[in-house]
């Protein structure tokens, strides 16, 4: 069956290399990560509903299931 041959990529490779890095590289990586998240916030600011309060208030659902 064709579906069985498709396998997800293996996990865990990136973090193993992280563990072996000296402290300074870890700090640098963290800094890079933080700056990436800041870029992300800028992107999210662009798409986030402008009136958050109204948006949140008007999201009313009925129960389901």
């Amino acid at each position, binding site marked *: 069956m064709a579906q069985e041959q498709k396998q997800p990529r293996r996990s865990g490779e990136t973090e193993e290399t992280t563990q072996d890095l000296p402290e300074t590289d870890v700090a640098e990586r963290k800094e890079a990560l933080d700056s990436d998240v800041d870029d992300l916030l800028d992107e999210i600011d662009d798409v986030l509903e402008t009136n958050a309060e109204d*948006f949140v208030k008007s999201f*009313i659902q009925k129960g389901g299931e």
Partner: protein
Amino acid sequence: MSVRRIMGTEVEYGIAVQGQPLANPMVASSQIVNAYATATLTARRARWDFEEESPLRDARGFDMARQVADPSQLTDEDLGLANVILTNGARLYVDHAHPEFSTPEVLTPLDIVRFDKAGEQVMLDAARRAATLPGGAPIVLYKNNTDNKGASYGAHENYLMRRSTPFAEIVSHLTPFFVTRQVFCGAGRVGLGQDGREHGYQISQRADFFEVEVGLETTLKRPIINTRDEPHADPQRFRRLHVIIGDANLAEVSTYLKVGTTALVLAMIEDRFLTTDLSLEGPVAALRAVSHDPTLRQTVTLRDGRTITALDLQGEYLTRARAYVEQRVEDVDDQTRDVLDRWESVLERLARDPMLCARELDWVAKLQILQRYRDRDGLDWDDAKLQAVDLQYADIRPEKGLYQRLVASGRIERLLDDAEVDAAMHEPPEDTRAYFRGRCLEKYADAVAAASWDSVIFDLPGRESLQRIPTIDPLRGTKAHVGALIDGADTAQQLFHRLTRGA
């Protein structure tokens, strides 16, 4: 057994009509389903066949009387709400006040991810089509589980199990697992309590809505272990475990681990491999306590008096699963190994620093965004902007949904590519009876009067009565069984003739 098993998910989507907060959600949900059905189903629309449905059948061995049931439990009454079967074998319909997508039956966790994600694309396509209809207002769909005002709607999983496994065994071994698996499959939520009255962040969307340990209900007094027992298969051999405690996940790894680890635990229960009692003291309270602590340091108490974190309790299950696969499973398949490896990797990194899993798990990805907003803008947890981020994370539109933005910018790990997911919008899985259902809908739509999980009903020219083909065995009707037969039958009459002649 391994992670392979007959499984499926059902997700109810949150629904909002833009600019009309008081719009009737049943009407809007019907517009969604009808818009998709009209556009994609070229011929007559097959009805859902309710004959085999029994929502009041209890796994503990009795039926609830219809008179004492809450009206919301009578899901087998056709209320005239939109309800269609798709060519991929899935069911798209209106359940109460939400559009719902039920995946076809599949055999592997990765196929669950594939069809669960295909469901998102079907919903997206449906919403876009509904917006183009005359008088159609823009409808936005959310893959989440609460409005943070007291309402919750479900994301259910289904696992076919051996009937011979005592239900009490399932309850005792599965409950501690369900209470703690949220550490990797929680979807994250801003707000504590059913109506979000207290401020803060928690791991799970659903934890605060569970009130009892075991029960039949899904809409009130929600139980950690649901006892609904409609196997949609031979009831002598199988029960269907209907799991209502999960969150609707967007992250593929969260969905994959949710289903893969659960399948492994079920295999261990069926094979009587779990002998240690890990039962919790007060599982309902433990479920909330775990959810309310995103630092993952909260401990829960076992009945034997031991205290343990959710991560360590998951570790107990992982250790046993590794031993089980080593000792009891021959020719271990790649997905089983991959689920074990990822499970271990995620638990280990969550223990070091949960943020190490921001590329894989919903609740961590969401928390990372929220935490940066708090740091940058000095926001408290009651700030509407943070609640908006929570909601908008689940918006399924690629241009607006925050999860979708994470994917688009490569910040979330994927297990599948878009082409694989898009194909699953239309093509059924090949290794279950969903193949037969889907292909019949695709090829003989004119002649299919109704269908359900366990039947396809034909209305054939020249025959007065409808002809019902039962599909009671989920592992029959696969491509290997009927692929050539369907390929070679130009009409439904030919197919029916060849099927019944052989029987």
